């Protein structure tokens, strides 16, 4: 286990050390102490590390993550796991706005609540939220899955492309071109796998599925005069 104290070594030293590790390393276990809500901790990792952040983090934690598993023992600020490519980011508490924004891959688990714009412009990331999400979540979501065990705020999935959304609780309102869709056995299997990988215990039967009506993003020849 490699342990770094944020208050002693600072942000740059921590990120430099984590980014310098190559994929073949045997030194895979890292711990970061006293993060004190500071920003951009554990960004840009590209190695199969296990990074344990012991406390609340600020904005943009674990951004651009590849391969690594980053666990936050606390709450996270704005832009958690922004543009994640692969790996796992798990926050034990709540996450602020735009969690998982533009993520291309990997799994983001938020055990508490996520605020607004969770999964905005998601491009392949899977996001599992143990609590609720705020307004405009999955806005323009392109690919990937968002699972919400609690409720979703206003305008869920506004202008959505092909991201698939599963919500167990209430949805305050659906955004433009987002509709409820049939839950098939195949979807139930996908959902069950995501919940299992996230270690979140919730019955698949309690969820409803939402996605794109595909009327907004497809060019429609009948509307040609309107363009």
């Amino acid at each position: 286990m490699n342990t770094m104290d944020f208050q002693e070594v600072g942000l740059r030293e921590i990120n430099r050390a984590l980014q310098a590790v190559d994929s073949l390393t045997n030194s895979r276990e890292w711990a970061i102490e006293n993060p004190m809500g500071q920003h951009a901790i554990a960004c840009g990792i590209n190695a199969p590390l296990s990074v344990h952040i012991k406390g609340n983090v600020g904005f943009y934690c674990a951004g651009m993550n590849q391969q690594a598993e980053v666990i936050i023992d606390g709450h996270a600020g704005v832009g958690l796991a922004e543009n994640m490519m692969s790996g796992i980011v798990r926050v034990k508490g709540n996450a602020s706005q735009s969690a998982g924004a533009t993520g291309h891959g990997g799994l983001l688990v938020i055990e508490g609540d996520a605020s607004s714009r969770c999964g905005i412009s998601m491009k392949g990331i899977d996001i599992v939220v143990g609590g609720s999400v705020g307004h405009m979540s999955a806005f323009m979501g392109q690919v990937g899955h968002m699972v919400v065990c609690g409720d979703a705020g206003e305008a869920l999935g506004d202008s959505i492309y092909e991201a698939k959304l599963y919500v167990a609780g209430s949805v305050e309102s659906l955004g433009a071109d987002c509709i409820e869709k049939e839950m098939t056995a195949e979807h139930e299997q996908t959902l069950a796998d995501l919940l299992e990988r996230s270690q979140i215990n919730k019955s698949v039967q309690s969820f409803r599925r939402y996605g794109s009506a595909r009327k907004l993003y497809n060019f429609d020849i009948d509307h040609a005069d309107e363009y």
Partner: protein
Amino acid sequence: MCGIVGLYLKNEALYSQLGALFKPMLIEMTGRGPDSAGVAIYRDPVADDQVKFSLAHESSEYDWTSLAANLGNALSCRADVTQRDTHGILTTSGAEKDVQQWLADNAPDIRVVGSGSSVEIYKETGLPEQVYERFGLESAQGRHMIGHTRMATESAVTTAGSHPFATGADLCLVHNGSLSNHNRLREELKRKGVTFGSENDSEVAAAYLTWKLRQGVSLKDALEEALDDLDGFFTFCIGTSDGFAVLRDPIACKHAVLAETDDWVAMATEYRAIATLPGAEQAKVWEPRPATVYAWGAETLDGMAANASEHADQGAA
């Protein structure tokens, strides 16, 4: 940018440390607002028949003692002043309107930055740490404080354009964001007799609340009406004689985080400003929902004496 912070102590044993606990909160927000800083502190309430004014002058050499003596003679009232750098805290038995009129007529270079029974407002251009030290706030005692670090966008970097802005007796506002309709709203408010000391957009929000409150509207209703009448981005923190309130615009463009322990309640633009408080790691931490009024200890909010616990279960950090 801009950073805002608020701290309300629930545990009386901490009152003696208010200024020391608040200092790192304000300084942590320096990156968000290096142009100017200001705080409102609620302490040492004056007697019922007295008013406390926070006054400011451009120079720290200003002769406050003579000002108080002249005011006392002219209005046949008690007038004591304590100087803190460029500011003077005037305690007087004179009627509030008469004092303001006298100051306007006889000391036009003095700005009234706040008034009430317990509020003291201090604000200046410069880095937050320097501003905080100029006014000797580290040793300040009291129950609650709000503060602001400014990165100027809508108007010039001046002391008059710094926050907090007073919105009535013991009320003041700090704002993170920018308002789009401040010019038109300022003109409307001027026609209604509200006066302005700067071209600042946040001052318009404060003036709007002042005007609403003067009409007898409760602070809670005034804040809810502000959601319709103010166009732009905002997270507001409003200091009251009893505590503070927080409001975000309906799409919650500007960051805000709340945290609460048995000892204190804190709000900040970013959690890192709260991280230095004792027990912060164990605090309940969440993000205030858009278009929702949160308040602590604010009896002036009518029916919102304490923040409902349901708020704490909604939103996120």
